[in-house]
């Protein structure tokens, strides 16, 4: 298919004269094909199905290709996760494909390490370099080879895993700054299933969300957003109600009917408060039978007690509890804000407990735990590699960092959009540790903070030019496998990581060759899906297999009802006297964990809440600002015990008092000129702390101080500071 789409030889001959206004720009040459491709009419666009990898959600996409160039990305209407819909980040992916600063050729370090002085080299040279180093460390026990990637799924993951196993190295680390560790742990504790549930927002009647930004960045945003729309208006008689509790009025919270600002890290307590009312007033069948919980200590959490801790009014909490119970099926969910505290698991467990008490588990409009890899039983133990649980891999990363420092690694293979040098807290000293590794190889499309440190940079295709398959972590119950294919020819001379690993394995031979017998990754895929009964070509055309037999839902009822989660207080670094504000960070709606920051479209997309563009900011409530003597647009230094950065103040009437909120994703030091120098990187002032139970990164775990400072530039917002209050003039 790839070679048949022989587009690049074609130029000019477009029906639209002077696309660029001046006639001087009309192509003067008309270059026809040597051999015209089949099923292609000149000047008529074609659509190719693939998968979006701008975030881990795994939405299906179709790409409009005209004269060999990708013109537009749209959601794949057949795909169960997003049903033809797509978010801003997905739409913007085109710009990473045609980005001026993309890596077009392999690079080798010339200057000192970390200096970023590279020279272009040929692929042959690059591969021989790579293999040379590999051969050197091959056979050492334990093999001092580290592979640090973004979380991979499908056969890309399988190949990587087998490679490492065959190579004899146990150190395969996948890093996801927004991993769901706490969520998994909580589900295991409450439901006995260590997995992400299917939440049926579309059919729920009452959605209770705890700092869960599910409409913007958490889980599978497009899927949830679609469901949210359905929940509101698809049913003739029912309009689902949406109540949001959290430290900040996020875009998601703005859609809620009722937003209750609560102190950071008190989501669990708030949930228990609601649970207390449910049980006390015996509002649901399950609540009636939950006397055990009551005696275990739930009775302590009267709305009054909870109100003191959270800052929400007891009356409202009780009211919400009654409504929640009175509108079945309901749904309680929590997101990064709750999970990212040191007591994340506790928070999420309490929220899960609400679902149990309201009897939402296994109900339509509630939640269920499908077995998403049922279709891959033939892989046996390796089936898990195709759809690994969405963990952050933080413990493993910490371990790896330690081992790097102690010289345990001779070589590191780095890949991925999660860009550890940017997304790991500076306190972890990842950069220093990495530079202790003698030989670093990066598989990258851009020279970001991580690949910048490496000795050898291998340019990989963007996901629009790459093969792959995937099982989305949420949004389907196992019936869907997504295939991605190159929608256009590789725009630069790039090779995918999987292909390079296969080539290496072939070179290294022996056991590795046996583990990875394929010539190319594409071949691996075709082979893997040959048995499915559906022709490969059709599957590619449709974007995957969407009608596989869904696996049986796993039981959620535990023998004995769930125990009351062990009460844990969220702790924050830094003493309140010196650092008066609690620091609340959230993934940026446009840049997610920072991978979108180099795309002009996303930089110029006004933030949904602050309406700021091209720069990041720190949000505080007007009240807090008054206390600190700050006003809107002031430049401040945001200082935490682990570091400090500069930012502009953006007054936000929806932030809980005593909280400073900041979006993650901006503040790059490399990653191209559009990403560079756009304010500070909040990751860099976060402590290297863990969530107490699941050991995921605890982002919401420090206090900060704001002090006015003179900083260059200004914060640009599209909303007029006075006009944004005059909604009365419009509606």
């Amino acid at each position, binding site marked *: 298919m790839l070679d048949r789409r022989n587009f690049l030889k074609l130029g000019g001959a477009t029906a639209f*004269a*002077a696309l660029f*206004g001046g006639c001087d720009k*009309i192509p*003067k*040459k008309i270059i*026809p094909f040597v051999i015209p491709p089949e099923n292609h009419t000149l*000047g008529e666009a074609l659509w190719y199905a693939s998968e979006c990898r701008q975030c881990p959600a795994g939405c299906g996409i179709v790409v409009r290709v005209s004269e060999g160039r990708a013109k537009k990305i749209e959601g794949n209407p057949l795909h169960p996760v997003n049903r033809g819909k797509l978010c801003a980040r997905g739409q913007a992916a085109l710009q990473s494909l045609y980005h001026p600063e993309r890596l077009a050729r392999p690079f080798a370090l010339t200057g000192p390490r970390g200096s970023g002085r590279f020279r272009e080299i040929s692929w042959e040279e690059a591969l021989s370099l790579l293999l040379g180093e590999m051969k050197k460390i091959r056979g050492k026990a334990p093999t001092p080879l580290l592979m640090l990637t973004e979380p991979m799924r499908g056969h890309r993951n399988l190949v990587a895993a087998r490679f490492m196993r065959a190579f004899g190295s146990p150190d395969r680390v996948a890093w996801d700054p927004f991993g769901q560790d706490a969520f998994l742990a909580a589900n295991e504790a409450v439901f006995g299933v260590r997995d992400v549930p299917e939440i049926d927002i579309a059919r729920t009647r009452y959605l209770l969300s705890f700092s869960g930004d599910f409409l913007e960045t958490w889980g599978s945003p497009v899927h949830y957003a679609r469901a949210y729309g359905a929940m509101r208006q698809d049913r003739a008689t029912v309009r689902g109600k949406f109540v949001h509790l959290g430290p900040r009025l996020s875009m998601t919270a703005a859609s809620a009917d009722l937003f209750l600002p609560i102190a950071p890290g008190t989501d669990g307590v708030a949930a228990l408060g609601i649970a207390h009312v449910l049980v006390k007033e015996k509002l649901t069948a399950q609540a009636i039978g939950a006397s055990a919980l009551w005696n275990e200590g739930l009775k302590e959490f009267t709305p009054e007690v909870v109100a003191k801790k959270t800052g929400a009014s007891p009356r409202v909490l009780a009211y919400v509890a009654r409504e929640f119970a009175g509108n079945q099926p309901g749904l309680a969910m929590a997101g990064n804000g709750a999970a990212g505290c040191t007591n994340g698991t506790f928070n999420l467990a309490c929220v899960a407990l609400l679902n149990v008490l309201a009897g939402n588990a296994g109900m339509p409009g509630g939640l269920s735990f499908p077995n998403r890899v049922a279709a891959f039983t033939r892989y046996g133990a390796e089936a898990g590699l195709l759809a690994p649980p969405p963990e952050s891999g933080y413990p493993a990363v910490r371990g790896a960092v330690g081992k790097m420092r102690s010289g345990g690694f001779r070589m590191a293979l780095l890949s991925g959009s999660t860009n550890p040098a940017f997304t790991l807290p500076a306190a972890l000293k990842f950069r220093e540790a990495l530079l202790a590794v003698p030989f670093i190889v990066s598989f990258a499309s851009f020279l970001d903070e991580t690949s910048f440190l490496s000795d050898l940079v291998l340019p990989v295709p963007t996901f629009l030019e790459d093969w792959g398959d995937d099982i989305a972590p949420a949004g389907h119950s196992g019936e869907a496998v997504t295939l991605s294919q190159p929608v256009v020819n590789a725009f630069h001379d790039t090779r995918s990581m999987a292909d390079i690993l296969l080539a290496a394995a072939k070179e290294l031979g022996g056991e590795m060759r046996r583990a990875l017998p394929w010539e190319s990754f594409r071949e691996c895929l075709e082979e893997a899906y040959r048995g499915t009964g559906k022709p490969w070509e059709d599957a590619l055309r449709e974007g995957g297999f969407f009608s596989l037999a869904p696996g049986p839902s796993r039981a959620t009822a535990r023998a004995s009802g769930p125990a009351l989660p062990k009460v844990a207080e969220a702790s924050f670094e830094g003493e309140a006297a010196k650092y008066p504000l609690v620091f609340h960070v959230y993934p940026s709606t446009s840049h997610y964990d920072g991978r979108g920051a180099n795309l002009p479209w996303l930089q110029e997309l006004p933030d949904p809440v602050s309406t700021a563009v091209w720069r990041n900011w720190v949000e505080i409530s007007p009240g807090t600002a008054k206390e600190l003597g700050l006003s809107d647009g002031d430049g401040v230094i945001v200082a935490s015990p682990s570091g400090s950065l500069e930012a502009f103040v953006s007054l936000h009437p929806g932030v809980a008092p005593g909280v400073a909120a900041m979006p993650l994703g901006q503040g790059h030091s490399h990653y191209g000129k559009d990403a560079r120098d756009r304010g500070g990187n909040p990751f860099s002032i976060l402590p290297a702390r863990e969530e107490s139970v699941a050991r995921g990164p605890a982002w919401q775990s420090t206090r900060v101080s704001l002090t006015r400072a003179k900083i260059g530039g200004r914060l640009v917002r599209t909303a007029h500071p006075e006009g944004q209050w005059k909604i009365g003039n419009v509606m």
Partner: protein
Amino acid sequence: MLRPGPKATIVASLLVLLLFGASVAARARTSQPILYSHKVHVSSYKIDCRFCHTEATKSASAGIPSVEKCMICHRVIAVDHPEIKKIAQYWKEKKPIPWNRVTELPDHTYFPHKRMVNAGVPCLTCHPGIDKMDVAVQQREFTMGWCMDCHRKRGVSIDCWTCHV
């Protein structure tokens, strides 16, 4: 409508050339990598335009035949003609033929060939005399008034957005 002969064309082109220097390139006899003659193919051998410009009915642009297309006939026909040898050379090297653009559309104009052709507008309406030419030259200045005349006559849309988007 009067059809100016080649002389008149040159005069006209000189005039035009004086008037708007921009449109020189379009009207001057652009040299082509291969001396392809429409006259021979169309007039002498009566080959239908759409045999080579296959896209004309299906797509916005009429399309230029692929090297493969040329070779279909010229594997056997006039193989030792110097010009044909050139084609063979391109074919051997699997290189495309870098034709020079002859016909230029005014700025910001959308002209889908398929609509015109499928509506039964003969090619020669817009490319007058192309069938008589050894070297292709743009004979007609595509002025809006001229397009409009035809659109009015045929009673098709004269909404600006039909051609200017």
